[in-house]
């Protein structure tokens, strides 16, 4: 009998301890990042694997290092990549279907010239599947134009 009463008192005390923790956290500062008003600190994204992008060549930032060797196309498990060779070695079409990509880095690791890398775009949105098929050559030119301005 005394034991049962004591157990109940201990039980009630455990609830008070729990509630006091909840109360303490209620008044502690917010930990979440409220997206449109705040963004994640870019340093913490430095190794984040976002959608692929082409690495600019050393001498011309609008040019890619790609030599159209197709190594990435063959390595990709999801068949996301299309590279069409132009007159020389440089590609004329370089499309990347992000809807199929699993961000596995097989393409990046198999490229002999280091022409591919992961971007750190975390806020990319699209309203249709077609928008997720990216033309990486034109993206590279756009980036170069922005950088030159």
């Amino acid at each position, binding site marked *: 009998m005394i034991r049962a009463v004591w157990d109940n008192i201990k039980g009630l005390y455990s609830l008070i301890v729990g509630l006091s923790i909840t109360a303490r956290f209620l008044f502690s500062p917010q930990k979440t990042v409220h997206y449109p008003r705040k963004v994640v600190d870019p340093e913490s994204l430095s190794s984040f694997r976002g959608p692929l992008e082409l690495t600019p060549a050393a001498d011309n930032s609008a040019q890619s290092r790609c030599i159209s060797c197709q190594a990435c196309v063959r390595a990709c*498990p999801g068949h996301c990549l299309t590279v069409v060779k132009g007159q020389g070695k440089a590609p004329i079409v370089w499309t990347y279907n992000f809807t199929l990509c699993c961000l596995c880095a097989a393409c990046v690791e198999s490229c002999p010239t280091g022409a591919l890398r992961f971007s750190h775009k975390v806020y990319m949105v699209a309203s249709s599947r077609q928008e997720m098929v990216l033309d990486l050559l034109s993206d590279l030119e756009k980036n170069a134009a922005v950088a030159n301005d």
Partner: protein
Amino acid sequence: MNASNFINPFSIREDEGSFAGDFYTRNFERQARKDSIILNLGPQHPSTHGVLRVLVELDGEYVLRAEPVLGYLHRMHDKMGEVKTPYQYLPNMGRVDYLHPIAWNWAFVGAVERLASIEPPKRAEYLRIISCELNRISSHLLWWGAFVLDLGGVTPILYAFEEREMINDILQIITGSRLTMSYFRFGGVCADCDSRFIKLTKDFIPYLRERLKIYKALVTDNIILRRRLEGVGPMDTDICLRYGATGPVLRASGLSSDTRRNIPYSLYDNFEFAIPAGPSNDCFGRYLIRLFEIETSLQIIEQAIESLPDGPILIDKAPKANYKLPAGESYFAVEGARGQIGVHLVSDGGKNPYRVKLRSPGFSNLSLFAEAAKGTLLADAIAILGSLDLVIPEVDR
């Protein structure tokens, strides 16, 4: 069940009176008592975690029989292994069990390395251990939150997610992703750690130890939780072994069995850590053992990060996309957060493996449920289901 009870699913039409419903329900109904109710939990039910469906026969609030129905999340991972080269198949491993992807990475990479006799460098082994243990902690944390959520406590999962996000931040530095990581490569790992990774990990260990005290005060000592869990769903060692259950479920039943000690792989032999067993084989015992394993993992990480050697992280000429496995067979088992993960690889020397068999611990652990749930209250059956720590993508593969 005798032979006359068997129904050929193709011989029944949907509109055949009392036989309406799907194959599983019809088969389940055949053995039902006249006065019982058959209830279908899931596949879209918050307490069955993912798309698990459980058929239960109820007498009032008591479960007479339960039967899990699987396959809603079957993605043919075994088959995909046969149509991709090993290197291309590797990212699949992060998707089998999204809560402990690194252990699956390890099981497959280990099987390939064993078959091809590849020895990864020492630094890579250390990084593998650190990342795998961090990932184990994050898996247990999520289980802890979701389990208490099943029992009706909504806030604890928010505490668990705070730590889980920190682990994700740490793992993102080396793996590049936050959920379905594909970090291992045949013969090493894909990225080296930097000083930021080491600092964050070192800071995280004492921080989590402090937080575990809060967990204890907030949840473990809570009288409501204890009365919900103590004595519910006992599973003795015998039944665990019969069904092939492994991991915390088996250890809670009193057998100190852990792949990291039983079949040592990598450098786990060099580390000091205890394999706890017990204290009780009910839901509360399984709860305690997982919280204790978080502490074990912290100890391993602490030792590994102190003695992290320098050197390469990947062997020279590491296998790439066009790598052909030598003909032969290999099996590699690792200890995942839910139990023993095994990969059986058979190769005939061709471009793709001949067969890849994935042994998921969740599948064997789930088989215990039908037996443990017999005769319990429905709400207790949910507690038992939660205490098995099921990840449905892993069960279905």
